[in-house]
């Protein structure tokens, strides 16, 4: 395996997925956060093709004037795709909280911002009767590089089975503009932050290791024997294991014969 995809085929599957899931949940419109980055841009482009650009709302949610360039890119993308967009500054609610509960870390405000954006998305989802499209890719989901109940929260996620490298290939095919494709991936947790800088590995390396371990079901020992850097393999293995909680609903203490989360088993698409 080589992380290769046939972009037109993947596009077709994902458009079918978005269209059908929206219909099943009784929605005509989709909503998503637009960060000005690759994943949300690809998701917006897919949604526009699936349900029509006029039925997609992109929320641009900057924190004050920081990440100004990203917010501008998000707005430009929305105009190019012809989707609706709105800018909502999340600084007032984030600042109100941290003035009462100050912190010196950079991670806590980053997580708070991700959850504020989630809260705004869910509020607008109800106002606009639009289903929330998630934009977490397979790389982020597997290594847990996301904020639980923040950017990881959504109703349906078209990108969750595509590695970052594959999302990039899909972006080329979908004609996502160069001003977005050329940027270094960033979770936007603080100014100047990049994913690869923070994780300490490149997406190219992470994705090849993940594909080897997850898709090909190989062991850590085999990965190292195959020539992957031992430190990278070990780091990634640990990240996968330590983030399982982010991929699950809360564990429920079992008491009865039939318990939610254990043996009360129904499909999402129940009767739809």
């Amino acid at each position, binding site marked *: *395996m*080589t992380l*290769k*995809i*046939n972009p*037109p*085929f*993947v596009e*077709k*599957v994902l458009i*079918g*997925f978005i269209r*059908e*899931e929206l219909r099943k949940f009784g929605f005509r419109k989709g909503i998503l956060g637009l960060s000005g980055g690759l994943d949300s841009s690809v998701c917006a482009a897919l949604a526009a093709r699936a349900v029509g650009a006029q039925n997609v709302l992109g929320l641009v949610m900057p924190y004050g004037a920081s990440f100004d360039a990203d917010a501008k890119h998000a707005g430009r993308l929305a105009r190019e795709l012809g989707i609706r967009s709105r800018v909502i500054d999340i600084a007032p609610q984030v600042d109100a909280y941290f003035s009462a509960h100050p912190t010196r870390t950079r991670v806590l405000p980053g997580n708070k911002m991700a959850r504020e954006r989630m809260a705004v998305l869910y509020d607008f989802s109800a106002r606009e009767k639009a289903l929330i499209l998630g934009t977490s890719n397979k790389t982020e989901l597997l290594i847990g590089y996301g904020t639980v109940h923040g950017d990881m929260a959504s109703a*349906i996620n078209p990108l969750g089975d595509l590695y970052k490298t594959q999302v990039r290939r899909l972006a080329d095919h979908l004609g996502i503009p160069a001003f977005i494709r050329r940027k270094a991936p960033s979770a936007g947790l603080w100014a100047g932050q990049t994913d690869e800088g923070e994780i300490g590995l490149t997406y190219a390396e992470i994705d090849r290791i993940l594909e080897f371990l997850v898709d090909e079901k190989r062991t850590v020992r085999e990965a190292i024997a195959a020539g992957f850097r031992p430190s990278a393999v070990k780091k990634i293995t640990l990240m996968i294991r330590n983030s399982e909680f982010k991929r699950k609903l809360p564990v429920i203490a079992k008491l009865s014969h039939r318990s939610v989360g254990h043996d*009360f*088993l*129904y*499909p*999402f*698409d*129940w*009767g*739809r």
Partner: protein
Amino acid sequence: MNLALAQIAPRLGDVRQNVETHLETIDRARRAKADLVVFPELSLTGYTLKDLVPEVALDPLSDPQFRKVAARTRGLSAVLGFIEERASEPGIFYNSAAFVSGGEIRHVHRKVYLPTNGMFEEAKFWAAGRRFAAFETPFGRAGLLICRDFLHLGAGYVLFAGGADMIIVVSAAPGRGVSEGEAFETSRMWELMGEALSYFSTTCVVYTNRVGVEDGVSFAGGSFIYGPGGRLLARAAYLEPELLVHRVDLSAVRRARMQWLFKRDERPEVILRSLERMVRDPED
């Protein structure tokens, strides 16, 4: 004869709605002069049922919804999929397919091989069938297989040895694996078996797979007909709903068997004895 492959997207857990789809599709197939219309696996219920199984289960001998569809087969035949629960065996559920002709049930096959690993959890929710058998139809002898049954070499063999001229496979096969190809990687697996089985059993292999999405899983479509001798006669689109109607000349079975002597030279008694020994003394 005219074959119609009904590559539909059943609505999950909604038998009433699916009955309507069946009635409309049978009518369309009849207008297209089809003699047999083949629906996919669990066409009356959808696939990812989980705890909905008891709610959608039905007895084909008495259920009014099932009878409604069966009654619509006047002048033609249909294969349809459902969750079976007989009055004589309450609380036991099967993933079944029925061959219905002129309002009468000619044969019911219960899925034998239940995938239960990874994304599949069939054996958690229904029981396994216990036989494969060829049966008579208005067009000659046929056999029924449900999805994974088809991928087990012995299943197709039993139908071949049992004299089937046509092997009908109904499927709800999710697409898995994307690489550079223009279809899911798993589609190749089904086509390869269709080609191989039709070649080496000199039968006509008819495969109807469903489309649509359930819980994020896309069913791959790509239904097909292979003529005896491994000839691809027709294939439906991947992922899209379609009613594929195609004329099939079953006299090709006779011609293929004159050319390729697999049927004449087959020795089921040798196979049976070998299997019996193996089953009796697996250590041997």
